[in-house]
């Protein structure tokens, strides 16, 4: 592989295998994600998609293979290192801080960007104050970007599900990540909410230059917004390529329809 193409890659998953006890979740999976693209991971339930996201952001350590992120091997890192390195994520079941306001939730996303120590913050020293203003300002920008300013002070638990998903997205991009991992960002949404969410993901990718890896079951959405689709079935990769080609792949059709 040439030096040029290596630096164009943000993420490379190389021969990753993961099992829980005797159950193999993921077997020898490799794929790579160039900077700036939207990559979709699809496959039937239990195909190993979420496990793979958990490997990428350091929740699970793979038994075999490695993950190269931004030129560094990260397969032995923990979620905090991943977050500091610029990987942010959302969860399949919304994992927000329910009693806290929308703004506070988004501010927690800024946590990795805090430079001032707690003593400076207690004393209200200039650097800590300037930083607090900046974080507040960036959080407001993100609320505006995702059209949730009106809910700024609402406790997240009181918002409808579709908006909660959006707040979770806001918290993830608040850290200004290079790589955004979205675990079923549109699960349980109606058509209109899905279209909104698709637009937001495209906006984030285009305006902020964030590389996105997402898991999604709605194939229509996947084909519309992604540059690149990786198909998993029973923990193995069965297809990898641009949406148009993957859609017509006989193995993919078989996995989805069950025909052979």
């Amino acid at each position, binding site marked *: 592989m040439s030096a040029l193409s290596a630096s164009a890659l943000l993420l490379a998953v190389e021969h990753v295998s993961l099992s829980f006890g005797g159950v193999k979740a993921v077997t020898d999976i490799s794929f790579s994600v160039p900077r700036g693209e939207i990559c979709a991971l699809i496959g039937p339930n239990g195909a190993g998609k979420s496990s793979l996201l958990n490997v990428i952001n350091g929740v699970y350590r793979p038994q075999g293979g490695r993950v190269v992120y931004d030129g560094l091997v990260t397969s032995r890192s923990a*979620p905090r290192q991943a977050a500091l390195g610029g990987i942010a*994520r959302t969860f399949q079941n919304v994992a927000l*801080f329910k*009693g*806290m306001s929308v703004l506070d939730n988004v501010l927690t996303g800024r*946590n990795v960007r805090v430079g001032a120590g*707690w003593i400076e913050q207690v004393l209200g020293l200039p650097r800590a104050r300037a930083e607090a203003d900046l974080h507040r300002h960036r959080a407001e920008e993100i609320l505006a970007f995702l059209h949730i300013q009106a809910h700024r002070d609402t406790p997240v638990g009181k918002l409808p599900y579709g908006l909660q998903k959006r707040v979770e997205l806001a918290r993830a991009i608040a850290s200004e990540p290079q790589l955004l991992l979205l675990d079923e960002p549109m699960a349980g949404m109606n058509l209109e909410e899905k279209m909104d969410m698709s637009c937001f993901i495209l906006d984030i990718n285009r305006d902020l230059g964030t590389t996105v890896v997402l898991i999604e079951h709605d194939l229509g959405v996947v084909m519309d917004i992604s540059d690149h689709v990786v198909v998993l079935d029973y923990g193995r990769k069965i297809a990898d390529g641009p949406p148009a080609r993957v859609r017509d792949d006989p193995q993919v059709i078989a996995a989805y329809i069950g025909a052979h």
Partner: protein
Amino acid sequence: MDFFLEVLIGGLLAGIMYSMVAIGFVLIYKASGVFNFAQGSMVLFAALTFVSLVERGFAFWSAFATTLGAMLALAWAIERGVLRPLVNRPPITLFMATLGVSFIIEGLAQLLWGAQVHGLELGIKDEPIDLGGILLSRFDLFAAGIAALLVLALSLLFSRTRIGLSLRSVASDPLAALATGIRVQRIWAVVWAVAGFVGLIAGLLWGARLGVQFSLSLVVLKALPVLIIGGFSSIGGAIVGGLIVGAGEKLAEVYAGPVIGDGLENWFPYVLALLFLLVRPAGLFGQRTIERV
């Protein structure tokens, strides 16, 4: 009127003492959703360690520093050894674990320092001073001053720094907090350390007030109504709850006691707490749980 004020202010000052214990609970509860029953025995352990060191010839500050070190080690051991392995278990499991820890600490304290009652002298004479015709206990005023300082320091720590926001996020969803890059384990360690420190302060004040003995760990039982009234997750609530309990029990004792019977002071706070449970289960400042059904 002067007599009423005297009783009221005396009650409020005594209430602050309850608040000191309650704050220790609130800290742990906020960070990990655990009702740490062992807070009471931490208070006892602190007072006993301090007083035993002083009796062995330590100067005040070196005894204070040594005890603080012991409290931090104890808090660290509980967090690391008991609660962390039990993370994500149901609240009742955690509560039972802290109950067990509570008895272990008491046993340990007895093993280490013996079971006799010690007097603890902080150098503040418990004699009344006259403020505009109202007699107030010098010691109570001192304790209230310490409590005010403590609360000020804690609120600065939790409102100004990211520790406060991190604390609430960790309490709400540890996994999500981890993914946003919050050092969950460090937050827990900080909170337990602070709870240990608060336990030490409460132990010194209560020890000086009641003498250092094993019944000191029973102050937990007085902290309970304070927490129910103020709310389990608010430091401000612990203060207000303490004031209400302190003033309420003294006024009840003085004005209703002669009618209903002596000792009203001892059970009146629980009546108050029961009323609050019926009317406002989350307490005055507690976070109401929001659940969509």
